[in-house]
């Protein structure tokens, strides 16, 4: 396929994403409209005379037809204006910039764990199809689709923090280590390593390992299941027989040839699971008092701080869409047949 056609495909992909993004904005706009809180009353108070009420209503643009209001909403978003949070009295954008690295740290480590364990587990299950190890991987995976993440987190805290005492408790750092390291990236593991504060690094890691493992388990469940089914498909192919007939070591046939091809569709799966972990962090962060985006959204929600909720929803949705796009492009780059 020619490079021009490839560019055209990518272009179409971007157009699709633009439509999806517009849809996301339409939904957040719509939710903001149906909230039973009158934004005018919130601004002027319920004792304001009728003329003040009307004036503020016009100032806020709420007398305009809906499509014009939506247009102004789009313009605001395009300028990076997500409104102001009632709870923190900062702009929502500044708040999200502050909390996002914590979520990123958690979801990234979770995904790394999920890939490192899930992919080999899926391969082993596929190779030993129907044997006990296959059943074991399957049940462990199915359990991951059935257990509530917040409950697993609580049980993890009970066993590993309270009873065994081998991990740090809720929060990102112990009290003694707060504010020692000046943020560079906001990701504490990176910051403390860059500044050479290894005591902080160790403490941060001990706090991170449990919530990341809990999230990683869900990623593992999904990735091992998909790896197994992709591997089964590859192992049926003729090139596998050819490689065996050529006399290649079985290990090489499985881990190089078959897995090499199975990795192509796995890119999409891993990107998707990463996106799901960002979402799963909402409940996990609540349990672990983790100061990330998920807890920011739920906190704002419980305090009816709609600007913050919709801003957070918009950011997570955007990351979702971006990851989908990225995986599509990677997929096309890696697999020549998909171009």
């Amino acid at each position, binding site marked *: 396929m020619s490079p021009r056609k490839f560019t055209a495909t990518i272009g179409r992909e971007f157009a699709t994403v633009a439509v999806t993004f517009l*849809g996301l904005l339409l939904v957040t706009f719509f939710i903001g409209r149906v909230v039973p809180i009158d934004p005018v009353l919130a601004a002027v108070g319920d004792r304001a005379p009728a003329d003040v009420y009307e004036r503020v209503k016009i100032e806020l643009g709420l007398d305009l037809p809906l499509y014009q209001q939506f247009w102004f909403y789009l313009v605001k978003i395009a300028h990076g204006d997500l409104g102001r949070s009632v709870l923190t009295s900062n702009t929502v954008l500044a708040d999200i910039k502050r909390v996002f690295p914590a979520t990123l740290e958690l979801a990234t480590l979770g995904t790394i764990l999920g890939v490192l364990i899930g992919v080999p587990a899926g391969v082993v299950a596929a190779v030993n199809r129907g044997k006990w190890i296959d059943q074991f991987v399957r049940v462990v995976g*199915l359990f991951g689709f059935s257990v509530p993440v917040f409950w697993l987190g609580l*049980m993890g805290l*009970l066993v590993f923090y309270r009873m065994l005492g081998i991990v740090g408790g809720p929060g990102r750092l112990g009290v003694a280590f707060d504010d020692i390291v000046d943020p560079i990236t906001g990701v504490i593991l990176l910051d403390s390593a860059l500044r050479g504060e290894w005591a902080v690094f160790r403490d941060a890691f001990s706090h991170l390992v449990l919530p990341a493992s809990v999230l990683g388990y869900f990623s593992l469940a999904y990735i091992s299941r998909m790896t197994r089914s992709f591997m089964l498909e590859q192992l049926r192919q003729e090139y596998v027989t050819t490689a065996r007939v050529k006399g290649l070591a079985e290990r090489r046939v499985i881990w190089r040839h078959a897995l090499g091809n199975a990795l192509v569709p796995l890119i999409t799966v891993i990107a998707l699971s990463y996106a799901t972990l960002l979402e799963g962090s*909402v409940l996990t962060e*609540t349990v672990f008092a983790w100061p990330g985006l998920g807890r920011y959204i739920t906190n704002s929600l419980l305090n009816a701080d*709609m600007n913050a909720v919709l801003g957070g929803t918009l950011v997570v949705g955007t990351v979702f869409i971006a990851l989908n796009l990225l995986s599509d492009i990677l997929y096309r780059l890696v697999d020549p047949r998909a171009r």
Partner: protein
Amino acid sequence: MSIVTRAWLLSDSPSSRLQSRLGQAYLRWLAFRTNPLAVVGLAIVVLLLLAAALAPIIATHDPLRQALDQRLLAPSGAHFFGTDSLGRDIFSRVVHGARVTLFVVLLVVVTVGPIGLLVGATAGYAGGWIDTVLMRVTDIFLAFPRLILALAFVAALGPGIENAVIAIAFTAWPPYARVARAEALVLRNADFIAAVRLQGASPARIVLRHVIPLCTPSLIVRSTLDMAGIILTAAGLGFLGLGAQPPMPEWGAMIATGREHIFDQWWVATAPGIAICTVALGFNLLGDGLRDVLDPKQSQ
């Protein structure tokens, strides 16, 4: 089962429509039975149904009655799963919670199934711009983070179990539409559809009477596998205080109350969590088994 009935069911030349249908169902049951994990799943789901139906009989206490002199008692013969911070019997609350869970799951599936089926079957059968528009909308919804969107919806509508159902349903229909469309695309060019069309059937009749019934099996499989996800989302909303409101015995909300006591009275959060796991696992196992029987082309 007597040998005569068995022979009647397995007859190669059924003499009535009823006989052939029952025979089909029996063959499927025989296939289903060979998968032990699926049978376990079925047993769990039947248990859930029984618990929900017979909750007042099974429960040993009133799930709402508070007894402040019996707060946070450990599991014992009098209170199988112990008591919570208001002295309510956790076993009875878990049993009654089966009703809440079943209510949410059934309501979501009953709303989502028909919507997805109608959107998907119409898109697949009609084709052209109708297909493009409907699938574009479906894709937009599919690209959203489900839990976060449900959260934002509940925030807008206000907390409560009905609003939780609406929010979950609103975010859960797109996969159904996808499945139904894929089926309808295949059916669209089938000879029997062409025959019905030549007999003068209207497009609405073809979609409702001929396309939709044939899409249904794969949707049943899909919704069984989806039920675990619905249960988990509903429990998550309950945990955050946005789903069922107190004092309703909802499993997620019960875990939330147990959270404050997790280090000292671990049983308060443990029992409802195990209930959620068991039921969700049951639906997942059942769905896996049903897929092998009803929809063999999708299974690996």
